[in-house]
């Protein structure tokens, strides 16, 4: 099984969990997404964030190894890339991680930094969610149901 393929779908699953748990914490208008259970949303969001950072690290190391080995093989499932949606994902991921770390670490000590990074984190979530819809639309061929093999002997 291709490594980049597994990473892609793990990434998608973790990002989906992050988006849904994060939306629930965005405000009183958004809380219904998780029935106003903010405590659960908070734990789920932080655990998924840790996995998200780990996956990011794995993808970066994987890409670095490929560059150093001068591996030119095309990896259609890789999450990060030098252009297009791969580049967009890379930039948004770094911003998500940096702003998320600031929110996590300075929530009680630096309210100005927390408020600013929370604003970026929230608005970027809306942008990323919209971009994923576009990404799915562009890759809808992956959703086609496998056809039954033609019976022989007809």
């Amino acid at each position, binding site marked *: 099984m291709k490594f980049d393929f597994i990473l892609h*779908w793990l990434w998608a699953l973790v990002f989906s969990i992050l988006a849904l748990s994060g939306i629930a914490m965005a405000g*009183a*208008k958004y*809380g219904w997404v998780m029935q106003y259970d903010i405590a659960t949303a908070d734990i789920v969001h932080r655990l998924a964030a840790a996995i998200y950072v780990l996956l990011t690290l794995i993808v970066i190391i994987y890409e670095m190894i490929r*560059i150093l080995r001068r591996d030119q093989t095309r990896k259609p499932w890789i999450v990060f890339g030098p252009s297009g949606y791969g580049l967009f994902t890379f930039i948004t991921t770094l911003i998500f991680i940096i702003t998320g770390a600031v929110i996590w670490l300075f929530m009680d000590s630096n309210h100005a930094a927390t408020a600013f990074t929370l604003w970026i984190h929230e608005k970027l979530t*809306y942008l990323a969610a919209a971009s994923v819809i576009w990404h799915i639309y562009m890759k809808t061929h*992956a959703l086609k149901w496998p056809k039954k093999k033609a019976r022989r002997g007809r």
Partner: protein
Amino acid sequence: MWMQKKWFRLLIWMVTTSFFFAFAAILISMFRFGPTEQETMSFMMGMMKAMETSLMGLSMHVKEDTNVQWLMYESVQFAFPLLAISIAGGVYVRCRRKV
């Protein structure tokens, strides 16, 4: 190949649908009326519970610990040289290998 397996296709459909749900939830929440007083109260209660029971409150307690503060200080001391080395490595790879 997993892409030809129905159970995996089903998983893809589940993940994909969840993104549509997330985006629809954002749009609905953003443009709907409210929040009502009841919703605000529910949200505040949820936040208070999170402060008491989840990591949100725990992280605040932990940061008051002097040992943890020392560990954070040491981590930052390590982080900046590592960051500088990483950036230098990235620039080297980019310039040298022409990727």
